[in-house]
């Protein structure tokens, strides 16, 4: 218990706030690093996920590939890439982008797949083009699951981004490594608590975002009982959608 008190004292010590190695600077680095890694993963995974979800092709390949990606140990990949491109932020970005791709990819195609086929058929029958179907039907209806995927990826990346400090002077991981090596466990635990705190804040933000992205038509059709039961609406499998507005 004493260690926790020491760790909290370490976080609150004004001496640890100043300069480029201070807590605020490290936290911002960590946050920016996390967001960039998730963004890069999104740029890769979302279009591929949409394509798979819309065409229904390549799903088994995507499942197998993302399963494989999930099994890669991030530190091992980081070391391998760093031995190739050198130290700095390149290797951590690659390793964490690989970590973030599977959940986002799964969220993207699962969001499309969860939409009732009759909704898409109706869209097609009223004369919508394929791009209209994707843009105005599938993406809005699939968005909550996609956001859930990004949320899960962000959580994994923010926790694992401590590894950036393995080969670069970046992020909250610096406190973990420095504390571990010099047996300053208050610093190490303090750094860990900051990572947890950051993860909780991001979770809170995503909870709000996830509520906001439920299409208004879907949300208003939702029976009140159902809303009380599930804080995280999954409209795709909700029977209310099949009676949707189109």
């Amino acid at each position: 218990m004493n260690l926790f008190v020491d760790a909290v004292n370490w976080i609150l010590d004004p001496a640890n706030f100043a300069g480029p190695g201070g807590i605020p600077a490290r936290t911002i680095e960590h946050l920016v690093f996390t967001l960039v890694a998730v963004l890069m993963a999104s740029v890769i995974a979302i279009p591929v996920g949409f394509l798979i979800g819309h065409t229904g092709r390549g799903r088994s390949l995507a499942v197998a590939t993302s399963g494989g990606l999930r099994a890669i140990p991030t530190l091992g990949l980081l070391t391998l890439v760093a031995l190739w491109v050198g130290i700095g932020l390149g290797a951590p970005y690659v390793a964490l982008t690989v970590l973030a791709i599977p959940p986002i990819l799964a969220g993207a195609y699962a969001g499309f797949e969860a939409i009732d086929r009759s909704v898409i058929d109706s869209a097609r029958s009223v004369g919508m083009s394929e791009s209209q179907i994707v843009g105005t039907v599938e993406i809005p209806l699939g968005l909550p699951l996609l956001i859930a995927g990004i949320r899960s990826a962000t959580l994994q990346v923010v926790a694992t981004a401590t590894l950036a400090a393995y080969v670069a002077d970046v992020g909250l991981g610096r406190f973990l490594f420095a504390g571990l090596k010099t047996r300053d466990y208050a610093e190490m635990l303090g750094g860990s608590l900051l990572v947890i705190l950051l993860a909780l804040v991001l979770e809170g933000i995503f909870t709000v975002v996830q509520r906001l992205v439920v299409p208004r038509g879907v949300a208003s059709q939702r029976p009140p009982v159902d809303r009380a039961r599930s804080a995280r609406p999954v409209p795709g499998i909700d029977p209310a959608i099949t009676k949707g507005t189109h």
Partner: protein
Amino acid sequence: MFTAHRGRLAAVAAVAVGAVVALAGCASGDPLDSGSNADEGSATLVVGSQDYYSNEIIAEIYALALEGNGFTVDRQFKIGQREVYLPEIESGAIDVFPEYSGSLLQALNADAAGGTADETYAQLQDELPEGLSVLDMASATDQNSWTVTQAFADKYSLTDIASLADVTEPITVGGPSELQTRPYGPTTLTEKYGIPIAGFTPIEDGGGPLTIKALVDNDIQITNVYTASPNIKSDSLVALDDPDGLFFADNVVPVVSDKVGGKAADVLNAVSAALTAEDLVGLNSESVNDQLSAEKIAAAWLEQANLF
């Protein structure tokens, strides 16, 4: 209900029996129980080693040399870092352990003065706790150093650490986090020698391949490499001279318990007398580059050194 209870009882009994067996095992494994006439080569000597490949090779050399002279050896290798095994040696559970004079001295007394190999060795003898002693040290050393690439050294005619002050480009120090706060760290370089340090890049693989690559790629300009590392030769690195004793001399030295008497001490002293710095680099290289086992490397070295 009854069966669940019996199941739990059985589990408790199993744990208890297991604990008793384990304790009994500890008791019979206690080297202090095995008699005191260690000198005649009849007793079992416990040889330990760090979880560091080079240290394990030296421990294996000690073990093979002792066995070659009629001693029975119990190998307890790869016991983690100094914080873990030092209490084990002090308690008498380990009889022979390859150590490094300066690092051990600093572990025993953080304020030790250090200095040259002989000064460090003398201080170490004073600091060792009751019941432990060091035998003769080898000329082989495996110590910390500030290391640069040959190209960087040539460019600025670097020879010793102080000459880094003449470097005109920004110097970035790379290495594990703890390097930043060590007494020989970047702050000391600036304060003692007026060497401008542009920054510190953490590379947490402990002088491993990533650190070497960063140095060779010129991502960092200086780092801390152990002087017996085969990388110094294979990657054309230069460990800068340290005439002021910034780093403590780290000669290889066997730390022994009271159980190691005259004959065993003679054997280990003969090993130390033969083990040179070049030998140690060669042994490490056989492990890192040729991937040979500690046992093979140790046996080959003993044969080539004409020992036992």
